[in-house]
């Protein structure tokens, strides 16, 4: 991941030294700058040096603001986590609820409606959904703000500001979660132990919640975990669209302005969070499945 991020920025046709030196610089000045940045060294050596610095948490400095990259990340990671949590906190339960309803009412009208919605949700581009929200809720009705972060989450303004981005980012997640829940639950509802539960005289609601869904959570968590990359990608788009001061928007800004250290740092942190979330999923998985927890 580190390598991919690094290489991606290598193939960008812009030369960071040229950008940094500015349009008025002479070729000699650019060359001197390139040497001082180590850009004249072979690519593999640059990577090794970069790796060494990363391990010491030295991600370099932003070429534009000259603040330490690590500091920039520290400032933006909070809002990103905030946005992700605010999206997941409603999207995952809603997705599970809809998927459960669809599975229980399999083949009936409710199932078809829910699945139609979730297909629409899956195939809808996130920016399109966000734009619609901005257009109608933000601009036309002026119900909610759609630019930036209003303040900490516990303040009313903070809450008002996060609604639209969180609805946008979470909105594209509901459909996949619903589909996965439906599939996993249908699978589990045919299991022998569900029949055992029914044979015990357990009421159908409890059969679904206590016996089936509890087991279906294992594949659901796995599948949701696999979608985390998708969610991170969505966060980048959402943050840019809503001027949300997170890592994603920072990454986009850094890339468009060819601020290489900052872009590299942002990609790095996105990669690290991807790994961190996957570890979290594994922990959750072990908690849900006694066959793993007890090993």
């Amino acid at each position: 991941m580190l390598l991919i991020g690094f290489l991606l920025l290598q193939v960008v046709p812009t030369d960071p030294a040229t950008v940094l030196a500015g349009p008025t610089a002479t070729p000699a000045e650019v060359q001197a700058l390139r040497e001082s940045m180590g850009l004249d060294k072979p690519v593999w050596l640059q990577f090794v040096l970069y790796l060494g610095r990363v391990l010491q948490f030295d991600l370099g400095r932003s070429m534009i603001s000259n603040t330490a990259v690590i500091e920039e990340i520290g400032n933006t990671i909070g809002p990103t986590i905030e946005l992700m949590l605010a999206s997941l906190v409603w999207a995952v339960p809603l997705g599970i609820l809809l998927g459960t309803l669809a599975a229980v009412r399999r083949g009936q009208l409710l199932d078809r409606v829910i699945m139609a919605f979730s297909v629409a949700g899956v195939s809808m581009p996130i920016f399109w959904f966000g734009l619609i929200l901005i257009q109608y809720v933000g601009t036309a009705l002026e119900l909610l703000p759609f630019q930036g972060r209003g303040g900490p989450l516990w303040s009313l303004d903070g809450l008002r500001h996060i609604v639209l981005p969180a609805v946008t980012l979470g909105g594209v997640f509901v459909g996949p979660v619903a589909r996965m829940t439906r599939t996993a639950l249908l699978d589990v509802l045919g299991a022998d132990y569900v029949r055992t539960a029914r044979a015990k005289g357990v009421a159908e609601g409890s059969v679904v919640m206590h016996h089936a869904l509890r087991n279906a959570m294992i594949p659901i968590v796995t599948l949701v975990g696999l979608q985390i990359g998708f969610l991170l990608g969505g966060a980048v788009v959402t943050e840019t669209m809503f001027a949300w001061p997170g890592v994603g928007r920072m990454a986009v800004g850094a890339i468009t302005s060819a601020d290489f250290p900052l872009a590299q740092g942002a990609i790095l942190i996105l990669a690290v969070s991807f790994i961190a979330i996957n570890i979290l999923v594994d922990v959750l998985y072990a908690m849900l499945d006694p066959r793993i927890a007890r090993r």
Partner: protein
Amino acid sequence: MTFDIASPPRQGGEARYDPAGDMTDSTGLLEVRDLAVHFHSAEGTFKAVDGVSLTIRKGETLGIVGESGCGKSVTALAVMGLIPRPPGEIAAGQILFEGEDLARKSASELRQIRGNRISMIFQEPMTSLNPVHTVGDQIAEGIMLHQKVGKAEARMRAVEMLKLVRIPAPERRIDDYPHQLSGGMRQRVMIAIALACQPRLLIADEPTTALDVTIQAQILELMRDLRDRTGTAIMMITHDLGVIAELAHRVVVMYSGRVAEEASVADLFNDPQHPYTLGLLGSIPKLHVEEERLATIEGTVPNPYSMPTGCRFNPRCPFAIERCRVEAPPLREVRPGHRSACWRAPLEEHVL
């Protein structure tokens, strides 16, 4: 028949049931009359059970045999009220249990009977227990549900049940998850779940088929012992005539959704009155030696969507006459307590 498994165990011993009540009671505990279960699909209606009648008396063990797909499990599930609907449907007949017709009961009325007065154990011990709940919780669930007792009380009874099915160190095992137990142990847990509310009828659908031979013998031994102590009636579904010989009082032989023959175990083995039963007995597996399937009779089970007219066994039957191809034989008494659905019964008139 009152028994109290909640009472503290006598020193080192197992919880004890009072011996069964009157085992010779001749009133029917379960009377299935002309039961028909249909499954609907795009290809049409499949009559998985087509006019089955059988009776189980109090404390009696009735064996049900027949080759794969003849409708044994479907009959059992119908009694449990567990036919999946759709695609299934109880199309006709009565299921009289202690005088009440289960086929007419609502879902919630059936729930109060299931796992309480009638319970069931299944063929697949490896997958029949919920992997994410402890065995203790799974036993206690039914107890709390039907006996309206609290968690602590139910747990205590669950330990008693584990003891009853002879699981060593039950106080420890109760917190185990199913994957920590062997197949035989899991089937013991299934039996514990089934017996937890002291049912009047236990339906055992091939409870030993999936187990090792030695474990099979242990489980059968356990079931027999528990039956003798509790007086629970058992519907024992099996492929294994050895199990029938070991455990059952009477036998119903099913063929293609219908009853072919019904008799006491001795009569059935000594004096079979249906050609299909003759075929089965020709392939009787030796008890506890090897799992063998019964169906070594010429021909195959008829196609469910194009049943032969007349007797369904006629294409495979060495005794078949013209009438068998035209008219379905009713189940009729050939000897006292011995009924056969064959035009040619009694059969001995035709052999030699």
